[in-house]
């Protein structure tokens, strides 16, 4: 069981500069737990202490925005591709 994770530039400090890493888990939450063991600090940038996704991060499973498929409970299958992106936003 392996999932490809595309890491945005700002989080590559946690992956030794790698753009793509792989991890395992049957849900997104499990995947981030798994990733944190080999890429320390990555999970904390995406998941809050309360266990929710940060407001200004977008996470996708394949092409689906995970906010619409269960958030961190979104199911993963072998061969899925997860993309983490900064939500480019701002305001006055």
């Amino acid at each position, binding site marked *: 069981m392996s999932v490809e994770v595309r890491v945005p530039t700002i989080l590559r400090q946690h992956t030794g500069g790698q753009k793509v890493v792989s991890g395992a888990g049957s849900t997104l939450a499990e995947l981030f737990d798994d990733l944190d063991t080999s890429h320390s600090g990555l999970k904390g*940038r995406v998941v809050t202490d309360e266990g929710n996704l940060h407001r200004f991060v977008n996470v996708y499973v394949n092409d689906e925005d995970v906010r619409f498929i269960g958030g961190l409970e979104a199911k993963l299958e072998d061969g899925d591709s997860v993309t983490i992106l900064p939500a480019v936003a*701002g305001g006055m």
Partner: protein
Amino acid sequence: MVEAIVAHARADHPDEACGLVAGPEGTGEPKRHIPMTNAARSTTFYEFDAEEWKRVYDEMWDNDEEVVVAYHSHTATEAYPSRSDAGIASELGLPQAHYLLVTTRDPAIAEVRSFRISEGEVTEEPIEAIGAPDAVQTYKFAHSPDSTVYDCH
């Protein structure tokens, strides 16, 4: 390209407009203008549409491109990053990007300024618009080797 960015900001006024300029990874060269939808459709806030952003990012990934410029407009205030602009960009932003701001508050004057935003620090950088002298009426001039040049051809 600056002309196209200002035109986009004008077209979306009074809402804030936002978009990107992509370029080959590692070169820092602004090559491809990608106007984005402001999912917030607001006069005071902008946010890339999540689905559109994913499509654009995948395309950039396949082309080995990166975000060189991330721009947005302010419709009633100066072209300077607000506290939330800087806060959000620092927490999880585009560290390699020039954050370009356009203000559309005056219908006759386009003010464009450029910034680096990293770890809570906003640093203005000089820019120079070349090729389209009338596109922008005020910007911070620069003629040093450190300046960022936006090609208007």
